[in-house]
């Protein structure tokens, strides 16, 4: 907690400060608020009467939600379960590979042309690649091996996209664990895998959970690969919401409910990973 160079702040300055804080919060929350009230508007009202305040301007109804959970539930539930399976699968593989590689980079010295820093950067560089560069080869290969419209194809894709996060976060965390604890285990005759498994891994568990949250959220939000590698059966929620534009115009009520289906899981999950978000999203360049 710091108040650098602070003189006693005056009443006006405090008021201004709070004004900005309230303004920023309103700006931040407004789109979520808008999505929620739109989902509660009766379909007839949405396109005829512009409104911002429930109860006062319109009578909120759960009709749109009811429709989603009854008539359209088959489509929605399939999309949601696809999203969950794809994201969970990709997270699992990504975290497994990333934890192993992160430990390797933190505990062993690599010499020669590919030293530790080079290998680390090499893992990271995937994140700097525009996805459009690899979407066409992916499409052709996935099509050739008959994996179009399967969840497996998207697990492969999203694992690839999230590996930089898991490697970099885990490397950072293992580097911070004191090596001495493992050294004494090695003296006692434990193998590297034993010390990794029984000593380092449990200590790194919170960071692993946070890395998993980040991987899950990024996989959940991925769109363009999902659009091209799925037709129907394996479509995740991001692709299904892209189908809401019908010939008769945008169906606002669909949009609102489905957007919320897509937005809520990753944003809420991310709230649990606060401590590692800055470090994770900057690949360890800034400690949060």
């Amino acid at each position: 907690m710091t108040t650098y160079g602070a003189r006693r702040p005056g009443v006006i300055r405090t008021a201004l400060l709070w004004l900005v804080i309230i303004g920023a919060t309103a700006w931040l929350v407004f789109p979520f608020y808008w999505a929620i009230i739109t989902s509660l508007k009766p379909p007839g009202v949405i396109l005829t009467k512009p409104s911002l305040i429930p109860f006062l301007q319109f009578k909120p109804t759960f009709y749109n939600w009811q429709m989603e959970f009854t008539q359209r539930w088959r489509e929605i539930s399939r999309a949601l379960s696809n999203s969950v399976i794809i994201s969970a699968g990709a997270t699992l593989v990504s975290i497994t590979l990333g934890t192993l590689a992160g430990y390797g980079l933190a505990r062993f010295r690599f010499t020669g042309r590919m030293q530790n820093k080079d290998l680390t950067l090499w893992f990271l560089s995937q994140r700097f690649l525009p996805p459009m560069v690899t979407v066409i080869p992916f499409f052709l290969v996935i099509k050739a091996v008959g994996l179009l419209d399967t969840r497996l194809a998207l697990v492969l894709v999203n694992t690839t996209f999230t590996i930089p996060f898991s490697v970099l976060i885990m490397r950072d965390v293992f580097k911070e664990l004191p090596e001495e604890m493992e050294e004494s285990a090695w003296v006692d005759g434990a193998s590297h895998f034993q010390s990794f498994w029984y000593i380092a891994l449990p200590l790194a568990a919170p960071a692993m959970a946070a890395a998993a949250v980040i991987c899950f959220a990024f996989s959940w939000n991925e769109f363009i690969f999902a659009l091209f590698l799925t037709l129907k059966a394996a479509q995740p929620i991001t692709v299904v919401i892209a189908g809401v534009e019908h010939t008769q115009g945008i169906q606002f009520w669909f949009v609102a409910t489905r957007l919320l289906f897509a937005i809520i899981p990753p944003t809420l999950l991310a709230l649990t990973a606060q401590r590692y978000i800055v470090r994770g999203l900057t690949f360890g360049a800034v400690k949060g």
Partner: protein
Amino acid sequence: MQEKGRIKWLFVGPGIFWVLAFTIFPLLYSLVLSFLRKRLGQPASFNFPENFVRAFGDYRFWDTLKVTLLFVVASVVLTVTIGLLLALLFNREIRGRRVFRSLFTMPLFTAPIALGYLGLTIFHEDVGAVNTILRALGMVNLPRWFSDIWLARLAIIIVDVWQWTPFCFLVLLAGLQSLPREVYEATALDTSSGWDVFRYVTLPLLRPVLFTVVMLRLVEAFKILDIPFSMTSGGPGAATQTYSFYIYLTGLRSFNFGYASALAYILLVVMMVISMFFFNRLREIYE
């Protein structure tokens, strides 16, 4: 740090294999495609460097490049500036700061594709939130967000800024809080003005973090596709078609794989030049 043994490769090997198989291989494949005349269902033939030559004479290449650069510059400048101002503001004892910080992570994890559709309803010309508010404030000639070239671009920039400012804010705030406290105490004794403290103390100390933020923002901004895709479909006309959008249309709508791969490789080269600066700094951090 241990050096000996093959065991280290058991740890990093699987990850290396994965990246080779799913990043390096597609990249090489893409490079080969860019040398070919290849469309879906047609035999491929070698035609280097025709795809690359074609790009430089293609007006859509230049147009989409310009739109992308506009978005990149606007988004990076706005998100970093606003993020920095907010971070400076929040870098003090404020009750409930943790709650604010948590709130600020939510836009980061909102699916851009969903955000684009949400933007579509927020900027809708008749019943959208923005025009409803403007109408309530008494404005008569409401902006036609999706019919006007510059308004459509502005709408996209606003949505992008909403999504990314919190990232800049969180990282810069973390950077500010890691600055050594003693320096400030020393300057406070020198009775410098707030601006002087910022200009001569905070800013130089914050430079590495600021550099990181700008680089990461640049890289992400160049990828922009989902928000224009869902919010404006590139319209009106091609006013909000970004470079990635053009690759998408060429490769996955017209199925001209050869040309699309060449376009993608040109983007890759640009990104590599930008990342090189950043990688030099990261190499020091990862030492």
